[in-house]
């Protein structure tokens, strides 16, 4: 395969494509700056820079003196293009060679691309064909084989549908692109494929359809809804006041056209257009597929006339043609296919990708053509050394890059591209010193690639081709957060509160995070109830009371504009600046109210009320712990706990007599002591909770595995495997919260499976309907549900029983449904 040409190139009027034959298949190379399959055949010049493709296409209509498109039509003529900024002319052959060189760059990480099959239109004569060949040689190919486009398309079809081997016969290739139309009659006889006839229009394609949508459908609607004296002129003229709007409408029309290929109607939104009476227009135009079809009918019929002309010239009837092979982007339009079939009565063939078919066919052909020269590795590769200088981190929107080049640089060019696909410097001559202003994506690592190429775009290898600049991330060398910063939330399991991570220890400043929570109890407007947002600094695994509050908002019932219902959302935003100012904002979606405060780390934030509540909670916790350890006769631990209990009582009394607006340091001293005592309490009881959580984990693991074996599915087994995979690290850690987190997930997996199992559903039904019938709130409703439940059990309708159980559970008193604490107001 090494000695085959293998590369196929569609050097199109509008777009070009490169493909390669690889072991019986064809690979299309993507444009390395746009990831599209295609490269617009447009070349632009600016001072010493050349740019090819999409970036040049933008300028092609506006500065044709510097940016050239459509030069393929002039191949082989004596006409050349005067490039104003260069002060010299470029021939169509030279311009084509720039496109071919750019295509070579799509093929990165491969050996030199030294030969190719390049396609030409059926209409090209010998001079034009030779000019194309010359363009290939100028682009550095040692061998160029030409192939007619309709034949390339037919080869793509023949290779795609191998089982439908092409037999002797003839067909048409119908090629309707963005700006040109070609149709050719292709014949195969004794295995030889050739073109018998062709017709075409160099100025007909999809772009005309976009213009028709705007001018025939959008303009009338604009006039209907607004007042315009000279709409067409103001839109279409470069100096017209609506010229920018015209450009945007063409874009929208193209999108609508694409949508109409799969939908029966598409919308074009009109906004931001101010008419001659200063009225702003804002409405939507719906275009039915039938309207669009009526609009393009004349153009499509013209193409069909050309098919008929060929048929008449060659004395063909529809039955003489096997099919009409559709290629070119505009053949995606269903009307085009249907209309061609309707008016020609010949079968339509849309089996191949209309945009890449020609390059694919060329590559298949290239796979069968041997190179007629010997491939010799270049003995002496040009060697260059690059020394780069640039800041590795920046806060600017663009950064200065410079490099010194050592070695022979004659005839070499360079180019810098950003790897996210947002920047391309264009190709420039390499000098001893090069410099560029590189635009940076904000708050991201920006990777650029520097490539150095020879005259024909073969890449010269350099030691280091990557430029890496971190934008907005230079705090990497700056401050990390020294402790976890957590939010206190209600713990439904223990009835107390727990900590949820906002920013982990060592995460970098500045930082921000949003958390959405559900309110777990109703707060009546004007009541004394409140919602507490307490942000604490310290380990997440500790008791909330052991950590230091660094931000606290209490939303009181008296501040509310309406009742806040249980189940509604509270959106919390936390932002910590580089200087560690913490901004907390809470937004209640139901009342549309925001509460926001910024806390300065230099001021510790403690309120007496908050202190009192914390101490009450701490007392309750220590009392409960003491009775538990006494029950287990662990007298040593009880003794330690009682010591902590006495200290807590002492400071509780101190706090009780402090006025709410106390301005003394006393409240800070009490708060300090409280934290130390809570920490001590955590240390004394931590082991017990860890052991308990571990035991719970192993129970849950065993039960869940059994449940999955009996009633689970593959996805549940995978989920389970993922969870237990982290067992060794999580279970051996000393973090209760991590173990609890994995337990919660196992529990939820367990419940999901259980709610599908008949035994569980029947057991639950009996528990609610028999054992707790008297406690159900709405007994009349419950009765009919219970009847329905019995019927579901009889008919083994488990989905229905599951639904009935959920509804019945809602009739249980709330405290039975879920014994949760609501100190904070969300969990």
């Amino acid at each position, binding site marked *: 395969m090494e000695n085959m040409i293998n590369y196929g190139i569609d050097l199109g009027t509008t777009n070009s494509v490169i493909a390669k034959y690889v072991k019986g298949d064809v690979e299309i190379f993507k444009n390395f700056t746009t990831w599209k399959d295609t490269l617009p055949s447009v070349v632009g010049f600016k001072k010493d820079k050349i740019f090819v493709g999409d*970036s040049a296409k933008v*300028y092609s209509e506006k500065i044709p003196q510097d940016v050239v498109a459509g030069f393929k039509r002039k191949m082989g003529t004596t006409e050349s293009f005067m490039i104003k900024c260069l002060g010299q002319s470029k021939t169509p052959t030279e311009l084509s060679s720039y496109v071919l060189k750019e295509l070579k760059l799509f093929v990165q990480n491969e050996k030199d691309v030294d030969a190719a099959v390049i396609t030409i239109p059926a209409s090209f004569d010998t001079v034009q064909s030779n000019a194309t060949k010359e363009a290939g040689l100028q682009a550095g190919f040692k061998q160029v084989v030409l192939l007619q486009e309709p034949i390339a398309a037919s080869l793509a079809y023949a290779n795609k549908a191998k089982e439908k081997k092409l037999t002797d016969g003839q067909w048409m290739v119908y090629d309707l692109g963005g700006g040109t139309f070609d149709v050719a009659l292709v014949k195969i006889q004794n295995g030889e494929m050739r073109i018998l006839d062709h017709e075409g229009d160099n100025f007909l394609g999809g772009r005309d359809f976009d213009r028709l949508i705007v001018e025939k459908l959008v303009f009338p609607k604009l006039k209907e809804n607004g007042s315009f004296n000279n709409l067409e002129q103001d839109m279409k003229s470069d100096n017209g006041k609506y010229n*920018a709007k015209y450009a945007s409408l063409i874009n929208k029309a193209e999108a609508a056209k694409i949508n109409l290929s799969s939908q029966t109607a598409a919308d074009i939104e009109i906004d931001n257009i101010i008419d001659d009476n200063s009225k702003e227009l804002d409405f939507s135009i719906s275009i039915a597929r039938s309207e669009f079809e009526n609009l393009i009918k004349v153009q499509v019929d013209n193409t069909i006339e050309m098919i008929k002309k060929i048929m008449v010239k060659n004395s063909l009837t529809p039955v003489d043609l096997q099919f009409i092979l559709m290629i070119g982007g505009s053949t995606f339009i269903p009307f085009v296919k249907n209309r061609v079939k309707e008016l020609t009565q010949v079968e339509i063939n849309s089996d191949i990708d209309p945009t890449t078919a020609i390059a694919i066919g060329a590559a298949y052909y290239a796979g069968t053509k041997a190179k007629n020269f010997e491939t010799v590795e270049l003995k002496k590769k040009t060697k260059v050394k690059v020394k780069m200088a640039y800041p590795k981190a920046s806060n600017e929107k663009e950064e200065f890059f410079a490099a010194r080049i050592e070695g022979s640089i004659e005839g070499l060019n360079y180019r810098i591209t950003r790897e996210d696909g*947002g920047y391309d410097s264009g190709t420039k001559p390499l000098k001893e010193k090069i410099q560029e202003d590189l635009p940076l*994506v904000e708050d991201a690592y920006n990777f650029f690639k520097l490539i150095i190429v020879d005259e024909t775009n073969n890449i010269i290898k350099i030691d280091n081709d990557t430029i890496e600049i971190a934008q907005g991330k230079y705090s990497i060398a700056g401050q990390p957060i020294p402790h976890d910063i957590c939010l206190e939330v209600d713990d439904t399991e223990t009835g107390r509160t727990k900590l949820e991570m906002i920013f982990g220890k060592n995460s970098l400043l500045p930082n921000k995070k949003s958390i959405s929570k559900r309110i777990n109890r109703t707060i009546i407007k004007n009541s004394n109830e409140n919602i507490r947002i307490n942000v604490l600094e310290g380990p997440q695994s500790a008791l909330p009371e052991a950590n230091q509050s660094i931000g606290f908002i209490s939303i009181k019932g008296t501040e509310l504009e309406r009742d806040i219902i249980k189940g509604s959302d509270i959106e919390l935003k936390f932002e910590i600046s580089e200087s560690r100012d913490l901004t907390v904002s809470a937004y209640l979606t139901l009342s549309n109210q925001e509460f926001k405060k910024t806390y300065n780390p230099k001021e510790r934030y403690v309120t007496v009320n908050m202190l009192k509540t914390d101490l009450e909670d701490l007392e309750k916790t220590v009392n409960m712990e003491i009775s538990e350890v006494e029950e287990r006769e662990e007298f040593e631990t009880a003794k330690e706990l009682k010591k902590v209990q006495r200290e807590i009582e002492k400071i509780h009394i101190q706090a009780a007599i402090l006025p709410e607006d106390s301005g003394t340091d006393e409240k800070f001293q009490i708060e300090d002591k409280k934290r130390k005592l809570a920490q001590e309490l955590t240390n004394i009881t931590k082991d017990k909770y860890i052991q308990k959580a571990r035991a719970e984990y192993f129970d849950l693991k065993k039960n869940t595995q059994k449940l999955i074996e009996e009633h689970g599915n593959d996805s549940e087994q995978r989920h389970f495997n993922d969870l237990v995979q982290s067992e060794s690290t999580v279970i051996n850690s000393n973090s209760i919260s991590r173990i609890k987190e994995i337990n919660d997930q196992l529990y939820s997996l367990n419940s999901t499976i259980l709610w599908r199992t008949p035994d569980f559903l029947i057991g639950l039904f009996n528990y609610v309907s028999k054992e707790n019938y008297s406690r159900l709130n709405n007994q009349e409703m419950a009765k009919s549900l219970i009847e329905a439940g019995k019927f579901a059990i009889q008919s083994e309708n488990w989905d229905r029983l599951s639904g009935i159980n959920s509804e019945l559970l809602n009739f249980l008193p709330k405290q039975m449904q879920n014994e949760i604490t609501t100190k904070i107001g969300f969990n």
Partner: protein
Amino acid sequence: MYHQKKLAAQMEGMLDTLNQIFEIERKLAKIPESNSISRNLNKLKYIFENQLLGEENGLVYHNPINEKFDETRIDCEATIAGESTENLIITEVIKPIIRLKTSDGLNQIIQKAIVVVQSQNKFNEGEN
């Protein structure tokens, strides 16, 4: 293959939704309103950035309105309005730039913006 197609369709759906959110945001900027609708929009953007693709990846859009444009900028598919091609700025954004944020900090562009650009020189002349 089926799976890949499904994923591509899902991603396309997400991009379409983000484009709609962008349009709503753009329209909203012109309506005097308390900021409650913006909050819902911001929440939607947050979901795209932080939740929809898991914790490590997210989709974010950028509106390049009023930013400079020249031939090196390939994150936008631009149409030039007016005669001049010097000193161009983006005057209308039909679709925003959408990036895929990943944990490695490289924010790959997955949708280029569709924009209209115009010479700033012309604006200045118009003002005078």
